[in-house]
């Protein structure tokens, strides 16, 4: 025993971790193998029976995971783009051009003290960020990223989107009430007033679009807009788009409607008392919301994953299966030839560079070229790759617009905010609905 413990004591920390992990992993692996061996048949049977459920679970997990890098990307975009608009440099220390700074921010909120103020209601205080984050992630479920690339296609998808978006106000109100802070209370009440008011023009603004489309399934709405970009609903519902965009800006609590977290008035509002990862959840939820409302704007009014013009089917030209034995030969020869060819310029012109460095450089360049070509091949061969690229490109245009607005506009006042929703947006949305309905009556769809 002493010998054992002495040997254990001599190990460094990584050694201890490895020697602890190996037996554990072995045990887990054996257990898994046993479970699969004994229960494998029933599991496969269940999975085939409940295929839709399994698909939904996998898709929901993927969606939950991709929210984090999405939020990181948008946070970085916001930091860098606003910096450029302010004539600043912006983040430039962590990673190339500061790209990893938002990751470091994420790690920072993870390790900070998770503090509950005395006087706060601990249960509600803890649950509030979960509700806020959950509501924004749940709206992602109905978003069609590409043909076939969606978690669930409801026939009331749009209604579900509004319902889940409206759930966030519960979380914000919980946070504002339970924090035991007057700024937070004001922020919570502001968010309740704001989001409840803007739900109405938001829902009414798409009513005309729904009359035109005759469906509430977001997938079907996107599919309706295929072909040339003139099929996009923004050209049939310009007023609806404007109202929708303004209302989602208020729903996402973005400038100029960021009254709930007005940092120069009520010092971050509902989030004043939050720290650590609970604050991180609020923070991520805000940026995930920006992505979601941009994506929904694109899906409803800008053709979703459709290309702006009927994209020619090039898949036949680049079908690698048709190459036969030449494919194998190509795989064997092309890397060698490509590496040599791409390193040739360095070998010939840079006499100071050793040959091995030139060849390594050529190999790296060759990989870049191959990955690029593979991307092009995937883009023309698979619908979902092309669709995803078009969708993300359009979405990030709107994300950029949100960031741009944040750099430019001051904040409106609470009475102006409410007055704008009830006096201007709602009548305009009603007008849009009636005009659309009349047009459908007269002209037909």
């Amino acid at each position, binding site marked *: 025993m002493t010998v054992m413990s002495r040997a254990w004591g001599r190990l460094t920390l990584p050694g201890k971790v490895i020697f602890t992990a190996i037996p554990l992993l072995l045990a887990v692996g054996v257990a898994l193998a046993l479970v699969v061996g004994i229960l494998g048949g029933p599991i496969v049977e269940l999975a085939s029976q409940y295929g839709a459920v399994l698909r939904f679970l996998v898709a929901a997990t993927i969606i939950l995971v991709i929210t984090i890098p999405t939020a990181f990307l948008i946070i970085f975009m916001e930091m860098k783009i606003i910096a450029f608009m302010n004539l600043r440099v912006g983040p430039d220390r962590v990673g190339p051009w500061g790209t990893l700074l938002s990751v470091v921010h994420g790690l920072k909120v993870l390790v900070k003290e998770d503090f509950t103020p005395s006087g706060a209601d601990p249960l509600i205080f803890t649950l509030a960020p979960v509700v806020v984050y959950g509501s924004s992630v749940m709206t992602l479920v109905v978003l069609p990223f590409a043909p076939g690339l969606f978690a669930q296609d409801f026939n009331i998808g749009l209604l579900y989107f509004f319902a889940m978006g409206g759930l966030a106000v519960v979380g914000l109100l919980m946070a504002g009430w339970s924090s035991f802070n007057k700024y937070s209370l004001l922020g919570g009440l502001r968010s309740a007033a704001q989001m409840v008011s803007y739900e109405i023009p938001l829902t009414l603004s798409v009513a005309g679009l729904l009359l035109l489309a005759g469906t509430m399934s977001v997938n079907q709405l996107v599919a309706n807009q295929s072909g040339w970009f003139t099929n996009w609903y923004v050209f049939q519902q310009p007023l609806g788009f404007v109202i929708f965009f303004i209302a989602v800006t208020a729903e996402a609590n973005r400038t100029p409607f960021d009254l709930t977290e007005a940092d*120069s*008035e009520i010092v971050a509002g509902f989030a004043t008392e939050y720290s650590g990862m609970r604050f991180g959840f609020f923070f991520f939820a805000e940026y995930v919301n920006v992505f979601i409302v941009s994506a929904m704007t694109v899906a409803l009014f800008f053709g979703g994953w459709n290309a702006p013009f009927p994209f020619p089917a090039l898949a036949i030209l680049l079908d690698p299966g048709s190459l036969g034995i030449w494919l194998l030969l190509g795989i064997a020869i092309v890397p060698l030839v490509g590496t040599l060819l791409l390193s040739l310029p360095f070998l010939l012109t840079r006499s100071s560079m050793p040959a091995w460095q030139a060849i390594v450089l050529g190999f790296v360049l060759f990989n870049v070229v191959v990955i690029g070509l593979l991307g092009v091949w995937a883009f023309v061969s698979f619908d979902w790759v092309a669709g995803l690229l078009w969708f993300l490109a359009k979405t990030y245009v709107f994300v950029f617009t949100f960031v741009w607005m944040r750099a430019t*506009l*001051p904040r409106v006042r609470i009475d102006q905010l409410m007055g704008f929703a009830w006096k201007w947006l709602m009548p305009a949305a009603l007008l849009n609905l009636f005009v659309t309905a009349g047009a459908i009556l007269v002209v037909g769809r």
Partner: protein
Amino acid sequence: MTTHASMDDPRVTLDEQLGSFEPIPPYPPRTEREQEFYTVADGEMLVNIGPHHPSTHGVLRVVMKLDGERVVDIDPVLGYLHRGVEKLCENADFHHTISYMDPLEYVSSLFCEWPAVMAYEKLLDIKVPRRAEYIRVLTGELNRISSHLLAMGFHALDLGGITPILYSFIERDEMVEMLASITGQRMLFNYFRIGGVNGDLNHEFMSRLGDWMSRATAQVEANQGLLNENEVFVRRNRGVGTIDAQTALKMCWTGPNLRATGVPFDIRRAHPYSVYPELDFDIPTRSEGDSLARYLLRIDEIKQSLRIIDQCLHQMPDGPVMARVPRLMRPRPGRAFATVEAPRGQYSIYAVSDGTDQPFRFRIHDPSFLHLQSFTLLMPGQLLADWMTINASLDPIMGGIDK
């Protein structure tokens, strides 16, 4: 009174009941006003803003009585930055007091030094060389522009616009670098001396100034375009914090805030000092008296200051920048009052000499203090967010208010 364990640290026992974290002073009400203010009616709450709040322009603390978002009453609490500058100055010799003046209104330091040296020059009967006066006017107007630019930027920042403040700081940075090249300091210049200024204009200053003047007008126009044509900004400001000329005069307002109500009162014209009578410039006024007028008036003043700088550069005579002044100063017993038009209004110094080398009495008059006392007039009935607008448009500097 019940005791309970703190939720942060169970070993700590708190005496106060939860819910008693109200901004109520720990002493019984001393005046009727305090009695009235800290009696909270049903549906009202007291909200404490400051002393560390992003939009209080320093360490100002205000207690607001709110009914929902609407302000019922407001109580500014001062003194968080009190350093006893007046008493310090009474215990320092005349030269020393100038450096105590700088941190008072720290974004327009030259205007705090100016009345002090003017008062001492009156006590000592010193004639300042004309070149020194021109340099004072030139540097002072530069400082006024930088101060107004900062006021504009922070006005937008308090309303939630994050970009204009950075554009303002680009211009201000150019100006403080200019001034640093002749004064040796970027912020607290300590440049004016009794009988002149500390050092003549140098090549770096002149080249930087010429460079900046060639693009100043266009730059100021471009920066203001971001806000003046911004519907959100204009709507947040128009009709907020409106005050009429009579009330403003009664509340002893001066400077741009008074001129925004339509009273063309400017110390540079009303009680001319230095070489201002020789310079051609207008006193811009506006009649609305609201936050937007106060903001726009500062832009007009920047344009007038640019005119003054231009004339100073053309008319500046050659000659010494310091009068012949004794090193140890013992002015005759007497009193002197000097006042200048600072970016925030009338900045005055009252100094009494008893014949020693220190001022016997030294009093500072700060315009921001008088503007701040008008909160109780302007705020009731407005919304919480309007306080940020009004505070930013009055442009107080807490260093000068708390002295």
